[in-house]
């Protein structure tokens, strides 16, 4: 997930809004690659503080746009192997993405995994904005980031679907209903709710039917400390997420986006 300037071809990993090198507006393209070819790999045999479980492999990979990046994996890939993001094709799913500086790109990536599912759905979004209210400093990490909500809404606007907001002053409202398919032709489509929550409130969340949970885990609170985890999740089964957080156990087929073992290793750093 990165931006490339159309004019000078400069690649930016960070969330810049203008290519200052060219000093022109509107030259940046947001790229969310989905297909990677392995160029080289190394096996790391020495543990370090944040990567205790060894051996692991690091791949140098080239995406479909020709740009390169690296990836940690516990799996073995040969040079030339192709790694692709796959669409959700199971009844239950837990999708995870790392946020690498450009949060809106991470959110967009999350939804690409359920693109096909959403085609056949009407979607209503419930955002509990009470989560966004300022909290005392020590609880700041519990807040659902307002920036995240802005990005989410912006993504849905970008998808050119009609939507409605119950109150114009959205900083005051509790719920936003968002209808991806409001026209009559789509009346029969399955109705789903998208609940947007902070990771720090998952224990109080109950499983509802026909609900997709968008979980903001950029900041996590453990033992009164706030950690920058920089993760986002999407699931239709909150139990999958709760179990994964408590034990790391999940059927690999139900985990999309990142490698489950890699994410669980990261989470263990916050224990």
């Amino acid at each position: 997930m990165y931006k490339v300037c159309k004019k000078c071809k400069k690649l930016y990993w960070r969330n810049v809004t203008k290519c200052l090198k060219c000093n022109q507006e509107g030259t940046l393209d947001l790229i969310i690659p989905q297909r990677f070819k392995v160029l080289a790999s190394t096996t790391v045999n020495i543990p370090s503080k944040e990567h205790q479980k060894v051996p692991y492999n690091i791949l140098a990979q080239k995406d479909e746009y020709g740009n390169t990046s690296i990836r940690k994996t516990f799996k073995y890939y040969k040079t030339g192997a192709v790694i692709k993001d796959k669409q959700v094709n199971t009844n239950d799913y837990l999708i995870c993405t790392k946020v690498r500086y450009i949060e809106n790109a991470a959110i967009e990536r999350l939804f690409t995994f359920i693109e096909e599912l959403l085609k056949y759905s009407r979607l209503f979004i419930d955002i509990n904005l009470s989560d966004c209210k300022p909290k005392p400093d020590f609880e700041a990490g519990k807040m659902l980031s307002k920036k995240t909500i802005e990005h989410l809404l912006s993504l849905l606007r970008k998808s050119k679907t009609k939507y409605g907001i119950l109150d114009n002053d959205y900083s005051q409202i509790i719920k936003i209903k968002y209808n991806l398919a409001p026209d009559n032709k789509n009346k029969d489509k399955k109705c789903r709710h998208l609940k947007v929550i902070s990771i720090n409130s998952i224990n109080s969340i109950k499983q509802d039917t026909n609900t997709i949970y968008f979980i903001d885990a950029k900041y996590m609170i453990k033992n009164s400390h706030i950690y920058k985890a920089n993760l986002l999740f999407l699931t239709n089964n909150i139990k999958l997420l709760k179990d994964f957080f408590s034990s790391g156990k999940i059927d690999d087929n139900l985990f999309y986006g990142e490698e489950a073992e890699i994410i669980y290793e990261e989470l263990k750093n916050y224990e």
Partner: protein
Amino acid sequence: MYINGSYQTKFGVSDKDFDELAYEAIEGCLNDAGYEAKDMEAFVLSNNLNYFTESQSHTAAIIPSLTGIDAPVFNNEAACGAAGVAFTKACKLLDKFDPIMIIGVEKMSAPSTSDMLYFVATDSDRELEQREGLIFPAAGALVADMYMKRHNIHISDLSLISLKNHENGKINPYAHFYGKEVTLDMINESPVICSPLRLFDCSANSDGAAAIIISSKRKKRDDVRIKATHAMSFDLATFGPKDPIDFTSITKVSKKVFKEAGCKPEDIDLAEIHDGFSIMEIIVPEYAGFYEVGRSKYAIRKGENKRDGKLPINTTGGLKACGHPLGASGLRQIHDLRRQLIGKAGENQIGNIQKAFAFNFGSIFKSISATILEKDV
């Protein structure tokens, strides 16, 4: 611009604390240059990891605590390239403050290897590299793997670099590996840290300090002239560009420094090349203009970079055998070039030389500095 004096503590595992290492380098450098601390108009401090290793930030203010002198102290942090960049910074400040002392210090032996790998890894990109487990030996390994495949370099070429640097370090009393015999078999049989790099392809974490005093005036006969120095930083992430092993960043800095010095790579008699990993001693001479890209390996096989070779490189042991206290290495390189230029390199002395080149960098060619020194006869 001249180097009036320089000093290096013994690199390695030291009983001395950070402050004591810094103090030894400061006092030694003042004595070598014939100055008193109060003569210094400014200090530039180079350090990378003190926040982690000693729980002490705001390192600049340690200098007045050690010298008793209230003076401007400019802190500089640029990963393994901190000292080289600090040297360039000091040279650029010389029209405002004259003379200036540059001090590089690092204390690395106390933390566990696991912690130290993490501390050093914080010099890489947080989201793109640290989270992906790219400790620096792994970054060096990926670069090595791709570069070796493209240019048909054999692992035995890396062994020859390591062997040469250990031969040089063995006779350098200030080197981490001083007096230690390292054989080709030991190198070849050393454990793989991150494939294809083995233990002896990686520089060691060391404690150490170095200091240099620069001035616009020549103070004594064996002062060395700073012909040119330049530093630049580049996009932090190692990977991203379409060709991640096209190291034009090295060429940009080197071209600039050669142009400023009014000379060419072929005029250089001796080079100090940052060999944090053995593969770097192949890559840097190629992109800095000493060899065509892909040709370094032939020079290594012919022994051209040995002390008696056509272009001696790392004649005192390089980072590989001197050890690599991150914040001090770039100054140690310049100190060793000065020792060679003024004929005070002891057993490592290579004869009468005129021009020398130092190349230091942080992360994988991200904060780069290059300096050309000349004997002032």
